[in-house]
């Protein structure tokens, strides 16, 4: 798809490391994502994908390395710091309230009020509808349905829409298509593409290389806590990526991979 237009990565990690006790979860990893691009993050179980996004989201802190946002060094000490920068994470287990409707979920924790401190339902309902429409989420017939009535794909759409509603710059999606059927996976991948088209920097974590190749512009491969390389989707093949995931050699410290630092 379109090559990244922006010279400065929106979010850039330089040489970050993270250890849990004696387990080295991340070692000297470089990572970047730019406005308007979908960056996939792939790797086998235990490659360090979750640690990486949790650290970006402020749940863990990196031990070493630099985090740059729009080229400026930043320090992320907690989820609130990440949110302030405009980094939103859509976790696998969605975190929606089944008993509340779409509007109520979209605004949960950030409700709009009128002058009398009452919930401003008309404003919330209108903006929810606008947001869903701007993302071409057309399968939700009424924004006043409870989330319990929605399908897996629709729920994922609501969770994603919620993450982009708050002036976010970077949206990180953790396994957004896991447990979805074919048609619903299609919906969600289209949605991911549209986020990038709207100029957001999108990071998608997936085990499904088919999905990754469908939606990503570039692919970062992690193996055993190190980055094995960044591949442009247009210039690579699934075979090459699989090879990198299972037997890739770290770009920076050649020859080290698989020498006994297996993480769990």
């Amino acid at each position, binding site marked *: 798809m379109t090559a990244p237009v922006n010279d400065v990565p929106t979010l850039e990690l330089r040489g970050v490391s993270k250890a849990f006790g004696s387990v080295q979860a991340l070692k000297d990893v470089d990572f970047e994502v730019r406005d308007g691009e979908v960056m996939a993050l792939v790797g086998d179980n235990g490659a360090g994908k979750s640690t990486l996004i949790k650290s970006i989201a402020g749940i863990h802190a990196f031990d070493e390395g630099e985090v740059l946002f729009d080229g400026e060094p930043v320090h992320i000490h907690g989820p609130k710091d990440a949110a302030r920068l405009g980094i939103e994470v859509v976790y696998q287990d969605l975190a929606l309230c089944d008993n509340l409707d779409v509007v109520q979920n979209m605004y*949960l924790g950030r409700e709009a009020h009128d002058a009398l401190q009452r919930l401003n339902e008309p404003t919330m309902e209108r903006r929810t509808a606008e947001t869903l429409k701007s993302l071409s989420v057309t399968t939700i017939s*009424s*924004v006043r349905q409870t989330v319990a009535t929605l399908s897996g794909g629709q729920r994922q759409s609501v969770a994603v829409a919620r993450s*982009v509603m708050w002036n976010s710059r970077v949206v990180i999606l953790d396994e957004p298509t896991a447990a979805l059927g074919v048609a619903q996976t299609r919906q969600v991948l289209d949605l991911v593409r549209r986020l990038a088209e709207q100029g957001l920097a999108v990071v998608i974590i997936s085990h499904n290389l088919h999905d990754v190749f469908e939606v990503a512009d570039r692919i970062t491969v992690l193996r055993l806590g190190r980055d094995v390389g960044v591949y442009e989707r247009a210039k690579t093949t699934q075979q090459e990526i699989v090879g990198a995931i299972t037997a890739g050699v770290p770009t920076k410290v050649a020859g080290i991979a698989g020498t006994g630092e297996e993480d769990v």
Partner: protein
Amino acid sequence: MSTAAPPEVQAAAVPGDGLAAAARAYFDKLRAGDVGSLPVFVALAAITIFFSAKSGVFFTAVNFDNLMVQMAGTAVMAIGVVFVLLLGEIDLSIGSVSGIGGVAVATFQQVGTGHNIGGGGAIVLAIAAGAVIGAIQGSFVALIGVPSFVVTLAGLLAFEGVILQRLGSEGVIGIQNNTVNNVANYFLPKNWGWGIAAAVALALVLTAAGGYWTRRRAGLVIGNVPLIVLRVVALAVITFGVVMICNHSRGVPFAGILVVGLVVFWTYVARRTTFGRHVYAVGGNPEAARRAGINVARIRILVFMISGAMAALGGIVFAARLSSVDLSAGSGTVLLDAISAAVIGGTSLFGGRGYVRAALLGALVIKTIENGLDLLGQTDWVKDVTTGVILLAAVTLDTVSRRRLQASGR
């Protein structure tokens, strides 16, 4: 997301206008297992018809007045229960706390005991005592994580002990203060009754019209206009009907106004404020609420404070009705009546689903049965068995409806 899209995106969702469309949508909801308040209305109608046929006294204005006062205390307590159930928690201490409320108001209103604070002050202090008790119990639940079942079971025992200690050897405190006694024994002059009915009807019309214009101005789907009109008219007719019946007897009881006022107030809190929204969220998915930045512990503690305060106020109504408080305060069926009322009214025991009005509807069901069986000269065992059966039926209905809701993905 920055595009100023016109908001008629959901136009496709409008199920059509008119009452027929509304009825169709309602039956769809029923089939999916969302029964709402329907079973309560059916039960109330059946109970009314049954007792009217059996007893000549049941369907009279005097008895209607009595019934309103009889159910007031239970209904007030059940409001607190609704909030606790919305969280998916339980409060077993409300019986004892209502006893504490009665004892506190009786103690504070006593003349010549050093504290001369009058009836109003005594009522406020008693309610505050209930709220403090709720705050303490809620803190154990929310901050330490002790199951609410155990915390409030301990509270049930402990506060019963406190009542025993306070009432001491005499075992009873009389209430002479008129302000306190009027809570359950004052009947409004008939003109006032009509005035209030008119005010309620006006408020109904204004609220409905206000909602209509706000949504219209915002360019949102309006909903089913005939249905809205029908609802306003029905509520207004019920209001005038109740006042008319009461005015054939002693007039509208203050206790009835208190209950309706509290239901309206707490409905507003539950549906129109951020706090209420967060109560539903915590009840639905505490983890999602926490990730959305909601202070879950604060919500839990506040809800237990509401429960304690409403229990104490219910206890005040009971004490005022008897103009005294004795060792039986808050014991017997007081606790189970209040919890049953909330559940029978349609509040789910599983958290996150229910409305404040369930407290009033459920209390009406329980107390109507009790009242009717009393009139038929039935003994306590019949009343207990009947209430038990109805409670089981209500919980079974809730469970089945929850299963159907899940099956139909609602």
